[in-house]
């Protein structure tokens, strides 16, 4: 009995070793040769660029595909698939001249590939969640919502190398948008050949970017190789990139510390203290703002501008960003400093600080406000927020600040992200800790949230002057004047009306080995660009 028992154990053990051998024994792919090893925080859900919605896919797609433009290290669009472009005087028609670029199967990249991809993303039956990113194009929204035909959409391949795009309105950020995943070209023959299977495996798609997807062990790893057909292959110095899928940050750090990874993007904030003094630690400013939103529809007391202003001024966001969440900078306005102003300069460089912490002023304003409302005390309210570690810390801090600086009592309610969205949408909150990230590289992606009855204007903020400025700015072909209108609008929203209380601008936290040079980071869209990476020996 005993012998047989141990024998069967041995057999099972051998069997399980064989099982693991079937998975293909991998070499230790640390920083050897010209190959970069990067942590990925999950399996790429979807590599069909017309449908992708997530960071992981965007990041991978940005390495293996290329749009008309590619963003450089300053987030400025540089000619990529397009060699040159002309913009009509009314700034509503763009004509792109394509360069002689090839797909990974050797066929030329044609203007028709862009027209096809964009219209495919817009087609209602594609059900693309990011279709709206194409809405600046003439009639794109109408086609997407079934009110126009595909032919009406303002994108047309005039010939193999010329793409003409007509816009709904002059847009300073459209050129940058063409570097976004939804704007990548797609090959009709390949998409139709694989149908529902398209882009599910490395050999079921074609590439036109600096790298190609060489292998994909689902949920384990994916590897990229340099694309020999890429037009700018002389610039690409890496032979390849290995992505290892490691969800737990702590495990990724263990792998980093044992030389199994060169880059660990997206650390969680609890690692800041341990790593901030090391040369490996990088802060990448994102285009994300954390802010408080007040439910003015439901709570009469929050309709008082002095009371809102008191709350906005009564929170020391310096301590919040530097000592509590540790993953950002205190916000002096709603628009984060990474975004463009549309006139060639960063928005924040041209807009003053609209939020200032001032405890005494806040106290005074609250007293006045309460008097106007005929109240002796601010009623106890609920402060809604996410249930992540960092959000809970922030909520706790805000509660303390409001109590000590203003004598306001709030009860914290931490809920899962989707629940927070649901409650915000239904107006089921009093004060909520919200977060917004840019859709495109322009201050407008933040400011137009708060127009009257805007979809994300959860608290019911409304000011006709603000609405008017936003509306004018959106149609304005004079981009300097447009900037002034946006700054004026932000001043009304944040400083005059305290419609929201901006708290902090978030950073991404990365670990990168010091010998990794030329890794480019973007505040939104694809996090990283590997095209220019070199490895110092």
């Amino acid at each position: 009995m005993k012998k047989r028992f141990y024998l069967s154990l041995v057999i099972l053990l051998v069997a399980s070793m064989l099982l693991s051998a079937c998975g293909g024994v991998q070499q230790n792919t640390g920083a050897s040769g010209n190959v970069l090893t990067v942590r990925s925080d999950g399996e790429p859900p979807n590599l069909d660029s017309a449908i992708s919605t997530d960071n992981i896919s965007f990041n991978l797609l940005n390495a293996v595909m290329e749009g008309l433009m590619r963003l450089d290290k300053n987030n400025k669009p540089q000619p990529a698939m397009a060699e040159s472009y002309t913009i009509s005087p009314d700034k509503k028609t763009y004509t792109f001249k394509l360069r002689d670029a090839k797909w990974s199967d050797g066929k030329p990249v044609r203007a028709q590939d862009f027209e096809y991809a964009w219209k495919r993303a817009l087609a209602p039956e594609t059900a693309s969640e990011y279709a709206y990113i194409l809405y600046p194009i003439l009639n794109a929204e109408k086609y997407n919502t079934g009110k126009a035909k595909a032919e009406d959409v303002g994108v047309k391949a005039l010939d193999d190398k010329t793409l003409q795009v007509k816009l709904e309105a002059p847009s300073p950020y459209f050129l940058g948008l063409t570097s976004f995943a939804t704007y990548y070209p797609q090959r009709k023959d390949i998409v139709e050949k694989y149908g529902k299977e398209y882009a599910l495996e490395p050999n079921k798609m074609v590439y036109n970017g600096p790298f190609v997807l060489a292998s994909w062990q689902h949920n384990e790893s994916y590897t990229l190789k340099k694309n020999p057909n890429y037009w700018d292959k002389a610039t690409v110095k890496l032979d390849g990139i290995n992505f290892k899928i490691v969800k737990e940050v702590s495990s990724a750090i263990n792998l980093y510390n044992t030389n199994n990874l060169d880059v660990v993007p997206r650390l969680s904030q609890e690692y800041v203290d341990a790593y901030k003094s090391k040369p490996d630690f990088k802060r990448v400013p994102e285009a994300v703002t954390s802010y408080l939103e007040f439910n003015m529809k439901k709570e009469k007391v929050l309709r008082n501008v002095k009371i809102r202003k008191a709350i906005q001024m009564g929170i020391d966001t310096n301590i919040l960003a530097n000592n509590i969440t540790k993953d950002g900078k205190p916000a002096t306005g709603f628009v984060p400093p990474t975004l463009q102003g549309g006139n060639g300069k960063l928005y924040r460089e041209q807009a003053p600080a609209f939020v200032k912490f001032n405890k005494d002023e806040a106290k005074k304003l609250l007293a006045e406000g309460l008097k106007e409302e005929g109240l002796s005390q601010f009623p106890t309210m609920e402060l809604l927020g996410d249930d992540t570690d960092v959000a809970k810390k922030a909520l706790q801090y805000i509660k303390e600040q409001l109590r000590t600086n203003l004598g306001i009592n709030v009860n914290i309610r931490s809920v899962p992200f989707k629940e927070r969205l649901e409650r915000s949408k239904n107006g089921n909150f009093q004060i909520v800790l919200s977060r917004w990230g840019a859709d495109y590289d322009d201050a407008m992606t933040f400011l137009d949230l708060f127009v009257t009855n805007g979809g994300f204007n959860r608290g019911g903020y409304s000011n006709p002057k603000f609405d008017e400025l936003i509306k004018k700015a959106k149609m304005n072909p004079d981009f300097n004047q447009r900037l002034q209108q946006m700054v004026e609008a932000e001043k009304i929203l944040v400083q005059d009306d305290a419609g929201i209380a901006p708290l902090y601008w978030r950073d991404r936290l990365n670990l990168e080995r010091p010998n990794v040079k030329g890794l480019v980071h973007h505040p939104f869209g694809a996090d990283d660009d590997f095209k220019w990476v070199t490895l110092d020996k």
Partner: protein
Amino acid sequence: MGRYILQRSIYMIVTLWVIITFTFFLMHFMPGSPLQNEERIPPKLKETIMKEYGLDQPLPVQYVQFLGNLFQGDLGKSFQYNGRDVTELIFQGFPASAQVGIQAVIFGIVIGLTLGVIAALRRGSWADNLATVVAVLGVSVPSFLLAGILSFYVGVKLLWLPPAGWGTWQHTILPSLALSGLVIAQMSRYIRTEMLEVLGQDYMKTAKAKGLSRATVVFRHALRNALIPAVTILGPLTINIITGSLVIEQIFGIPGMAWLFVQSIQVNDYPAIMGVTIFYSVLIIVSIFVVDILYGIIDPRIRIAGAKE
């Protein structure tokens, strides 16, 4: 016995149906929708997409459709991994999960058995005390904590084994060990108790009196008898390991099924939630069934009691 198996099979199907129904309706009560980019989608576009997914139908209609597809063996396509069949996702992950699970059971049996035997033979000695400490730790320390400790000390500090990742057999050792804590604990305690009981039996004295060597007495006579009851706890333990692996897989970055289970719930990926739930339920229901049958085979008293019913 045949009637018993038939009866149990019917119960199993009913149990499964109840689980499916509950999960189906509960998951639709979760806030949010399966849209990944939900926050930003214009309402019109959202409507279109929900229609594409078939989520515009009333819930009972969706339920009937789901059951209909299930009967044809179709679990549908995942929402988060557009285009991928849920079945495909499950079977992509299952081998890795199973490997770690099986190894954990093996490690647990080998280590637990050894500890248990030593503890029984050296009752009251430091070895016995050590085995007790290991057992208490095994029961009380959660596997994810053990996983973190092993990954850090063995993987990062000592550099003996990879701290995380997948690919070679070395990668599987730490996760299997982390998972096996409970099995080690239960097994060693069980074996110790049973061994002590058997060692006190009259036939052990007979064996010794016959002049058999100590090893023969212990292994052929004592352990063999002590083992039989211990085998019966393996069923429930295996189930424990299957469910315990959820966290372990995340920590060690194993391409198993755990991520699918956790993530599909986080993003309201309804077909994936149903698929994984059904898969786990079937696994657990069937293992309980097999264990019950095994009880009868190993211990005739149960079989007789069952027959009287």
